[in-house]
């Protein structure tokens, strides 16, 4: 049996006294696309923020390729190979597109400028925008930059929080292609996705969260539109 790429056990976390996650278990195997779904406010983003190190869990452990990373700082997790593109296509608005990519690439000290070229090949729309301030990009362009910025850190695990949220359909298709291509290169993907169609197209496994607890986890093939709708009470 292979070591899980990411293994979350009995994870509980929240904000101050408000607990959001309760005893979450999540296993992501190497080279797969794992999708976490659920209604708004059930704790999906809190889970990803905790895995990325932005929130300290109250209980539980997180292991990455067999190593316990529960107490590591966020930048240490990124340097281990965990890249995170958070919700809301956040970028460094005062920095240019090129600076956004360089600051991320240089932070991980990989010294592989080919990663920036590869990210731009994956998102060619960014090429003519390299000198533009990131704060002036459209939502779709900013989302592509957010994923490109994560990819130039040379990750083995890419975490994406609702990458298609508020994005026009043709760019959603480009982002889907980028996610499948990334997984095809051997990079494991953990994805929070609100659109069921997208999740069913991309994911190898689907985990459904409700009220901070896992209520379903299994291969995508176990879920149909009807059963997924029922689980998420849509």
């Amino acid at each position, binding site marked *: 049996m292979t070591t899980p790429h990411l293994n979350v056990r009995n994870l509980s976390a929240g904000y101050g006294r408000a607990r959001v996650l309760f005893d979450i278990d999540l296993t992501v195997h190497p080279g797969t696309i794992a999708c976490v779904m659920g209604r708004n406010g059930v704790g999906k983003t809190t889970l990803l923020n905790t895995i*990325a*190190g*932005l929130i300290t869990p109250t209980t539980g452990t997180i292991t990455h390729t067999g190593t316990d990373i529960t107490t590591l*700082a*966020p*930048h240490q*997790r*990124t*340097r281990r190979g965990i890249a*995170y593109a*958070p919700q809301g296509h*956040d*970028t*460094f*608005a*005062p*920095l240019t597109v090129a*600076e956004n990519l*360089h*600051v*991320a690439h*240089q*932070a*991980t000290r990989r010294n592989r400028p080919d990663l920036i070229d590869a990210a731009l090949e994956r998102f060619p729309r960014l090429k003519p925008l390299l000198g533009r*301030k990131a*704060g*002036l*990009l*459209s939502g779709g362009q900013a989302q592509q930059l957010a994923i490109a*910025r994560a990819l130039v*850190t040379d990750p083995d695990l890419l975490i994406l929080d609702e990458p298609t949220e508020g994005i026009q359909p043709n760019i959603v298709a480009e982002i889907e292609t980028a996610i499948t291509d990334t997984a095809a290169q051997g990079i494991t993907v953990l994805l929070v996705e609100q659109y069921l169609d997208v999740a069913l197209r991309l994911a190898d496994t689907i985990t459904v969260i409700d009220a901070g607890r896992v209520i379903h986890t299994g291969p995508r093939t176990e879920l149909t539109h009807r059963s997924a709708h029922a689980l998420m009470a849509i």
Partner: protein
Amino acid sequence: MDAIISQLPTGLAIGAVLLLAALGLNFTFGQMGVINMAHGELIMTGAYTAYVLHAWIGLNPAYSLLIALPVAFTITGTLGWLLELSIIRHFYARPLDTLLLTFGIGMILQQAARDTFGAPNVDVPAPAWLTGGLTLTDGIRIHYSRLFILALTIACVIAIAHYLNRSRQGRQMRAVIHNRDLAAITGINTRKVDATTFFIGSGLAGIAGVALTLIGPTGPTLGTNYIVDAFLVVVVGGLGQLRGTVLAAFTLGILNATVEAWADASLAKLIVFATIVAFLQARPQGLFTVKTRALT
């Protein structure tokens, strides 16, 4: 208009000193949200560094000023770095606590200066090559020492702009100022960037202190006189905005000098404060902000 033109040299000199004092504050306030009330005492430390090099170590005034600049930068930078490392970093995200904390640190530094150098002010002689001045027109004359301060300030601004825009560490600093969490998950060690920022910000305060020895005497409360105006420059210029800080410093300097030319110092201060309050009512975000497509 004539009054403004005649006060321009004085205003530019005041603006230059304010800018040197505010540059460092802007980084520590903009990046870490630390209201560093001890910044004035770091300026004072820089000024006493110039005094020590001349009066205690006996360097020739002809070149002691030039040696004092990098030495003061290093000493005050290290002092600020140590303060950040040992005390201030434990109070991040608690701005009011940092205000009280750094106020206390400032008092300790002031008393340490009194114990070491005595309460009376001391003088640092300006080098002979800075005596005299340049006459521009009838009634408008700029002292060489003020021209030197202006040139020093311009050099510092160019160096900072180069650091922020061209170096890896500078880009990381801008990233952390904009979004600390995003910077952290991008792989940036934000603690290390904070320490570097405190070193540079405090070092710039040291340079400001050396520059102030060319304008007047050095005493334990030297920096306190500038700290409020320096904070005004930061607020008016916009947090983390180099262009805004430059523009705000020189505008405030010229405004101060012009108003003081026809009103007494207290009334001038009142008028300047009232102008700033009116400006901030209209533009609370300061002169410059980061332009984005977002509504806020």
